[in-house]
């Protein structure tokens, strides 16, 4: 008996080894390539719509006969992780995610390789797979610095407006608000003990107040700096900026949800999907969750609209993230090839169909039935709204683009947060922030 068990275990062990060997053999069987047998190290930020991209890399491995080491890092830790990889020039990664907030900093430090030479290499580029013109053109241009292309767009986000259609109906509100003034009036009508009238990013952390407030400043005719890119002095105390900030502080302190004064998307998205918020401007890539029955109790009660306009203009914050190649990567060509493949039309389509990803960077896919059907709960209104917003209102220049943005954004966030939580009055807080923003830019030579 004992002997039989030992024999069976040995047989099982041998089978496991054989099966593993078979798997290893299957991976690179897609055909020979110039990269056969090589390894590409990729680092992604676990941002909306991309958390499942790792599941697709088997196709790349099979196609080029290579191995992909795919690492996914949480957004809060991503910048620090990439810093620690890029600063000591370890050459540990060949393709990396470049978030919009810190992209310019890394480019200014010469840590990212310009892609122009690779894009011009006829032996390397598969034009059909690359299809550079197939990306949203503003997304491609926002990843250029000094005329050089440092990354290709992997994530093209923008703010749109979501609201509870059932509550609108009950309150006798016909259509979505067109102006900021209307948003505030609607918030007053909709606000109750159970459902907050309004929510908007307010936390001082990166990408929170610093993503929403500059959009408001521009919509009201103000801005973070006086005249980008000619005059980098702080502009938060101009009459237009102050009017925008007064609107923001008023609507937030009166109508947001419990905890909303220090909230960012991590708190706002669940608050909305739990039915605790009536109106919210948010990143459209995250709004796919509003429409998923498994995640949202209001999936069938949600409607979308383009961002309401301010007294000066209608504008939506944009956030273009890219995939680039570290300057010290030992396998730049393979890194490029991975980027070309993962951002190709075919793979982006797979991401939509298989992973329900909203985060695409090619307009053609957004118009396809597969994409529209993935988010049909909103009666196609979601997709139409995103398309219109991207076409007309999303602007990556809603804020000044500089390597110092992270620091400037934090100064703005601290000032906003202090005012929202009653620690400071609006004007003195903005005067202080203005001074800091001017100092930061002056010290950086702007």
């Amino acid at each position, binding site marked *: 008996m004992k002997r039989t068990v030992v024999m069976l275990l040995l047989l099982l062990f041998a089978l496991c080894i054989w099966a593993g060997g078979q798997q290893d053999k299957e991976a690179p069987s897609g055909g020979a390539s110039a990269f056969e047998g090589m390894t590409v190290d990729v680092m992604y930020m676990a941002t909306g719509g991309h958390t499942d991209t790792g599941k697709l890399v088997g196709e790349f491995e099979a196609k080029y006969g290579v191995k992909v080491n795919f690492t996914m890092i949480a957004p809060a830790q991503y*910048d*620090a992780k990439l*810093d620690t990889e890029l*600063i000591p020039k370890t050459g540990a990664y060949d393709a990396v995610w470049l978030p919009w907030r810190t992209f310019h*900093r890394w480019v*200014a*430090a010469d840590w990212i390789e310009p892609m122009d030479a690779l894009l011009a290499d006829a032996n390397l580029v598969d034009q059909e797979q690359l299809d550079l013109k197939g990306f949203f053109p503003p997304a491609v241009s926002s990843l250029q610095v000094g005329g050089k292309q440092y990354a290709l767009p992997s994530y093209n986000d923008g703010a749109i407006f979501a609201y509870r259609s059932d509550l609108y109906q009950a309150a006798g509100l016909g259509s979505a608000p067109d102006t900021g003034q209307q948003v505030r009036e609607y918030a007053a009508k909709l606000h109750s003990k159970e459902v907050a009238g309004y929510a908007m990013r307010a*936390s*001082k*952390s*990166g990408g929170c107040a610093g993503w929403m407030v500059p959009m408001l400043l521009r919509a009201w005719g103000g801005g973070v700096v006086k005249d980008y890119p000619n005059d980098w002095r702080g502009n938060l105390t101009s009459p237009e900026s102050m009017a925008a900030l007064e609107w923001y502080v008023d609507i937030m302190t009166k109508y947001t*949800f*419990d*905890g909303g*004064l*220090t909230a960012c998307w991590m*708190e706002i998205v*669940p*608050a909305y999907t*739990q039915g*605790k918020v009536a109106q919210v401007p948010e990143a459209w890539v995250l709004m796919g969750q509003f429409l998923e029955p498994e995640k949202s109790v209001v999936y069938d009660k949600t409607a979308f609209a383009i961002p309401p306009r301010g007294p000066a203009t209608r504008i939506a914050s944009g956030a273009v993230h890219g995939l680039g190649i570290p300057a010290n990567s030992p396998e730049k060509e393979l890194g490029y090839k991975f980027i070309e493949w993962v951002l190709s039309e075919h793979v982006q389509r797979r991401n939509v169909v298989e992973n329900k990803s909203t985060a695409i960077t090619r307009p053609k896919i957004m118009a396809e039935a597969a994409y529209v059907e993935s988010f049909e709960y909103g009666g196609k209104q979601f997709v139409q709204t995103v398309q219109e917003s991207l076409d007309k209102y999303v602007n990556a220049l809603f804020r000044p683009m500089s*390597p110092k943005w*992270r*620091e400037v954004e*934090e100064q703005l966030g*601290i*000032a906003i*947060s*202090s005012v*929202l*939580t*009653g*620690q*400071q009055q609006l004007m003195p807080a903005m005067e202080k922030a203005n001074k800091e923003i001017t100092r930061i830019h002056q010290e950086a030579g702007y």
Partner: protein
Amino acid sequence: MKRNTKLGKQSQMEYIKLLIPILVVVFLLIIIPLSSVVGLAFTNFSFVTMKENRFIGLANFVKMATDERFWNSLKVAAIFGSTTVTLQIILGLGIALILVTKFRVTRISRTLFLLPLTTPPIVASLMWKLFFTPTNPGMNYVLGVFGIKGPNWFDKPLSAMSAIVIANVWQWTPFCMLLFVAALESMPEDPFESAIVDGANVWQRFWRITFPLIWPTVTFVATFRAIESLKLFPLVYVMTGGGPGISTEPINYYAFSSAFEYNRIGYGSALVVVMMILVVLIVIVMKRRSYEV
């Protein structure tokens, strides 16, 4: 006599040889990193603008003198330090006094009380953040059961700071308790027997005998926890990010932001140097206190 001296020198050499490995380790792992930080504090070092990095003398420290955020971070560190250390010592000692009784139930409790200490700080931070988030059924739900309306914890400086203090006290009180239990259990019994014969009550026995006997432990715990409170990082990072505004931003968090968020390594290092000076001062003061029984 001469022979003995020679032997003494020989053994001294033996001792030095034995010390060499640890001296190398101390030099590599402590002296070099610390000297690097001190050196960087006198530069405008930044990874982004490597070509412009240079020695700037005391400029970082001069700037600090007029930096409101620096003074705020010192104030926040002082508040965190004083409240957390005081609460941890009072609660730790109180629990330890209960646990040194001979009841069987206290032996099981001793293990249970140690559980927070075994929780990784980042996990504890996430747990408490979720617990204090008003939209979750956490602290405010518990308060609601008793008819109390809980605040929006992270929306006001006082409540945000209280949330961090509560989480920190929860995690580190067991450490204090453990040391106090050891100190209480190692006390001699004779003075207590004499005091009972002399008619001293419980309170008198505690203040006149127990407390003086465990005073060195109290000062050690206070010193250790005060230094640790200066390094309070995961709770701030996860729970408040230093906000609202900068109301919960202690000096180490400000140093982190300056160095790694804004890439001002020189200024961040200068802040760390100030922090190290504070630690040395705490140690000197508490060491003196430990002799004042």
